[in-house]
């Protein structure tokens, strides 16, 4: 049976992204995919494989190796009426384009007081666990959320990768679409064949639970889910809330989750100081303080740069660290 006769197809995350890019390029001829090695080689993770053959070299473009040029040109393309979908090969490389991202793309609508829309979807793989060289695994999502004017989207599942990427490409504002390195082939799941849109700012329960809530995003949703299974065997019911997007943030969903359990663990891969988990805790403190039965706990990376391979399994939160945090949290008396 061909794909389109079924309602869903089981895909890896990278397959879901690839098919979504193709579908959006098919739908809207203004959509343009470009970046380093995206055309002939199909991207270092093959996320753009086959697009060159299907849509031609005007719309699928191998760029000179210059991240600022990729994003600066994207701003001009958007101003000129195109729908750019640039790829930054690894999120850590975006440091070399930060002035275009934070200084220009994020504020172009604002500084032109509504004249110029920056409907740009910036795709970038991020996150650790696959033994990359330096600067290939950094989790910079917290920094990105501190740049007013960017939307930051962090899918965890293949279906959400499709639904959120579709939404991103159709959004009139800049979206940084972060794809977990480990999820590209490590995450597989049913993806609707028909058009599938997931609105931003709507968190999702990956696992329901009554005793403790883990709030997280992107690949850590799966790690937290494994931790919740182990804790369930010990009689502790742990829910996992997948934020899906950090800007906009589902404040109501977070408040609801806190009210449900009173005990919260926030899991992120990033440097903890001023990381996004801190923003989640601030949100809880402002809006759900009296529902807390214990102080919120963070399980993060460390206040150290993302390390080399032999240290990364310790740096990146894993099942054991999450489990340990939950066990300590349930011991706190209300």
């Amino acid at each position, binding site marked *: 049976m061909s794909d389109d006769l079924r309602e869903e197809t089981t895909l890896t995350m990278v397959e879901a992204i690839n098919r979504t890019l193709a579908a959006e390029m098919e739908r809207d001829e203004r959509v343009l995919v470009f970046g380093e090695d995206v055309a002939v080689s199909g991207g270092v993770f093959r996320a753009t494989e086959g697009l060159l053959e299907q849509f031609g070299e005007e719309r699928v473009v191998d760029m000179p190796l210059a991240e600022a040029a990729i994003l600066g040109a994207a701003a001009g393309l958007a101003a000129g009426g*195109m729908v750019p979908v640039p790829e930054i090969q690894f999120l850590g490389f975006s440091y070399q384009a930060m002035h275009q991202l934070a200084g220009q793309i994020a504020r172009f609508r604002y500084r032109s007081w509504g004249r110029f829309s920056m409907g740009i979807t910036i795709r970038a793989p991020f996150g650790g666990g696959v033994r990359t060289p330096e600067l290939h695994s950094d989790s910079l999502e917290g920094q990105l959320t501190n740049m007013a004017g960017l939307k930051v989207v962090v899918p965890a599942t293949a279906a959400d990768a499709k639904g959120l990427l579709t939404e991103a490409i159709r959004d009139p504002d800049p979206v940084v679409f972060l794809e977990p390195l480990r999820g590209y082939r490590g995450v597989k799941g049913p993806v609707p064949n028909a058009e599938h849109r997931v609105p931003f700012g709507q968190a999702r329960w990956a696992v329901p639970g009554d005793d403790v809530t883990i709030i997280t995003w992107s690949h850590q949703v799966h790690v937290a889910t494994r931790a919740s299974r182990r804790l369930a065997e010990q009689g502790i019911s742990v829910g996992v809330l997948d934020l899906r997007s950090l800007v906009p943030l589902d404040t109501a969903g977070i408040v609801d989750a806190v009210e449900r359990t009173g005990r919260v663990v926030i899991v992120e891969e990033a440097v903890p100081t001023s990381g996004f988990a801190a923003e989640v805790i601030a949100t809880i403190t402002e809006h759900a303080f009296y529902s807390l039965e214990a102080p919120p706990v963070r399980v993060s990376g460390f206040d150290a740069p993302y390390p080399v391979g032999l240290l990364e399994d310790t740096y990146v939160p894993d099942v054991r660290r999450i489990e340990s945090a939950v066990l300590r949290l349930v011991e706190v008396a209300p």
Partner: protein
Amino acid sequence: MALDLDNDDLVGMLCEMIKARISSNRLWSLQRQGRIGTIAPIDGQEATTVGATWALDPSLDWVLPQYREPMALGRYGSEILHRFAAWAIGHPQGGHIPEPLRVFPPQISLATQILHGVGLAWAMKLRREPGVVLTFFGDGSSSEGDFYEAGNLAGVLEVPVILLCVNNQWAISTPTGKQTASSGFATKADAFGIPGVTVDGNDPLAVYEVVTAARARALAGKGATLIEAVTYRLGAHTTADDPTRYAPEDELAAAKERDPIDVFRRQLEDRGIWDRSMQADAEEAGRRAIDDAWNWASNLPLQQVELLDHVFATPTPRQRAQRAELDTFLRSDS
């Protein structure tokens, strides 16, 4: 002078140069009176801006200015000066150049606009739109990575863009000799595989001629041109700068002898198409233009809660909440 300019054009160019100088002086005074923020005078660079824009078709061609040029973009409509006055006051409407005017807001982050220009020209090429993009930047900006990334990308993509380096000899206090060991700025085009041309930036007709040629080349599908217009900054970098600390007096005196407005006026007098009464009329028109712009800008309404507008096409729930909270505070505080 084998140019396709008639006497009306020549007179129009001089009028625009005079208007720019008067506007620049007026804005300087307004800053000294504490009525506007920091402003960068255009004194000395009028011939470059006016000569370049006279070579463009405002209905087809885009201009991406830095922060001085908007004073001399009258060819694109009196609205530009209105908006620039608002920009100088610090009104957000100042950054909004309305449709259909093909002018970007003033750029502060040096050289970023060159990449926007390349991207915009790329969009025009993809959409088969006639027209070119002209980006202004300075000798100092040519040291930025974005200049090299943009020149390189423009060469690779063969897009209809004109990179116009306004060499006014100074980047605030840093002379060109400390910006580059190169024999000039146009020669950097060799690295991009595009033509590089040096022109007397104090001669509006010479600038007109090279921009006309670059435009014809771009429209013929032959791609980008780098132009270095050699001029001299007769005033301070900005109202916050004191050039007596670094600019040699004799050098400045010599540059004033070559003031582009005086030189061009004498040329037109020699041709018998300019006289004292026209000079008086031009000065009166210049004063009226900046008066009109100032009156328009000074009377623009503004509410403080608007500071949350135009970040995104649709505000996030957080932004809506912040706006409501700010509104309540401002009402209670008044």
